[in-house]
């Protein structure tokens, strides 16, 4: 198991009293899987991703990443993390931004240049190395931030609503590119999203979560083939999985209605 969580609990202490962000979360993610986390705001999907990344400390249960604690995995640079905003440094070129983790991790200059060229190719940004972030569109900036997360060759890619701020057309295009990239690199991907079609289109496993307290309400193993052209979204199989996701979301919301 690449990632394994047992009875994971996380309670935040806030000024309004304790808030249970995650309750009794159990999940196994195998190597090479593409797992989406979907659910309404407050369902803990981002919190869970941050637990995997060692950015939040669970208050109960156990979680392991590559057989280590998340903290150790973070120290071993086991994952690349893509945030909702590209968060590129405005004072660095695109190439310079992608180099940032490589500089921090102490790669040699030659190695840095090699890797930057390779991952820029991978996200289809070759030729933009010398541009500054403001010279690129939002979609291109987000691709650059994905390249930055890929540059140091971690096996795991954690993505927190990476395309949430982009329009539908750009998003479709990036989804397609992300699948191709996943096929080429065979990474294990954890992907947080609000969008049902996006989750179904991308994932081998869809984790449906519900809020108050944040918990998993359904885990759906996708029956779609690995090779997925965009028009697979019109197939009956796709629509059926999307239905099941929607049902799962609705079930989680029943106590609200």
């Amino acid at each position, binding site marked *: 198991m690449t990632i394994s969580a047992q009875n994971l609990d996380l309670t935040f202490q806030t000024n309004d009293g304790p808030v249970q962000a995650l309750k009794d979360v159990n999940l196994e993610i195998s190597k090479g899987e593409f797992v989406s986390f979907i659910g309404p705001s407050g369902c803990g999907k981002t919190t869970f991703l941050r637990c995997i990344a060692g950015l939040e400390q669970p208050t109960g249960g156990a979680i392991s990443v590559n057989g280590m604690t998340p903290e150790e995995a973070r120290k071993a640079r086991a994952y690349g993390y893509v945030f*909702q905003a590209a968060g590129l*440094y405005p004072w660095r070129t695109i190439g310079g931004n992608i180099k940032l983790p490589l500089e921090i991790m102490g790669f040699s200059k030659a190695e840095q240049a090699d890797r930057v060229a390779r991952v820029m190719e991978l996200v289809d940004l070759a030729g933009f190395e010398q541009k500054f972030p403001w010279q690129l569109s939002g979609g291109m900036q987000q691709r650059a931030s994905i390249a930055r997360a890929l540059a140091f060759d971690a096996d795991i890619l954690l993505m927190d609503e990476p395309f949430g701020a982009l329009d539908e057309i750009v998003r479709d295009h990036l989804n397609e590119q992300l699948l191709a990239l996943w096929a080429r690199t065979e990474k294990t991907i954890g992907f947080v999203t609000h969008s049902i079609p996006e989750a179904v289109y991308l994932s081998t496993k869809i984790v449906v979560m519900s809020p108050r307290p944040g918990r998993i309400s359904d885990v759906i193993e996708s029956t779609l083939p690995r090779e997925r052209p965009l028009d697979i979204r019109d197939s009956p199989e796709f629509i059926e999985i999307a239905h099941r996701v929607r049902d799962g979301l609705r079930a989680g919301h029943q106590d609200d209605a």
Partner: protein
Amino acid sequence: MRTVFPVLTVIGVIVALWYAACIPMNSPWTIQQLERAGKTMTVTEHIADTWAQERPRLPAPHQVFQELWDTVVMKKITSKRSLVYHGWITLSATLLGFGIGTGLGILLAVGIVHSRAMDMSVMPWAIVSQTIPIIAIAPMIIVVLYSIGVQGLLPKAFISAYLSFFPVVVGMVKGLRSPDAMQLDLLRTYYASSAQGFWKLRLPASLPYLFASLKIGVAASLVGAIVGELPTGAVRGLGARLLAGSYYGQTVQIWSALFAAAILAAGLVALIGLIERITLRRMGMRT
């Protein structure tokens, strides 16, 4: 071109108001002189006289600029009557003080951002230091430094530094803290050390804030250097010119020294602005 007209209009209005204000300000002297001599004047002559007195309460613009021209351009710069000479005396103290203040301010800001103890203990004192009127503390600084054998340029530079470190501290603290939670989290995912976070993220992110502070700081430095010249009865520097002017009722000299100080300050701020533009552009930031 579109901006030239409004700018000239504003200058024109200020100059006109200035000339107008000279008439009631300087009239009493004209009247007094006329009474003493038992003469009379036409209104036009009377107004012309208020603009041409030797020691007016409010010198007219052309008198000030005549004096500036005489003391800046016409005098050799080694002359004791040259404003360039006095300006350089003040400027050298300003630059030294600005350097000390900026260095101190940056060091304090780095300490404040990285150490909670320093944040709690230094910041309140930095604020308190600025609530004390500089004119009250300047003589003490000079007396104390003199008693330990420090005199000349340094005491004035210290007063400059005293005024200029504060905006640098405030701006740098804000700048070093400007990276948001997401950017800090990104560095955590790389397991970056806090030194790496400082050099790669916090410092570059703080530069625009630093430049804004430097502009305030350099003007404050000049004020500090001038104030530092007042309590010592200095004979050199723009502050000395102000002081001498007020002893001898030389209002024209005071005003020309004031203008020289203002022009010097504007030049320094513009110079920082230029360095800012070049630096930020080289860093790829849009300015």
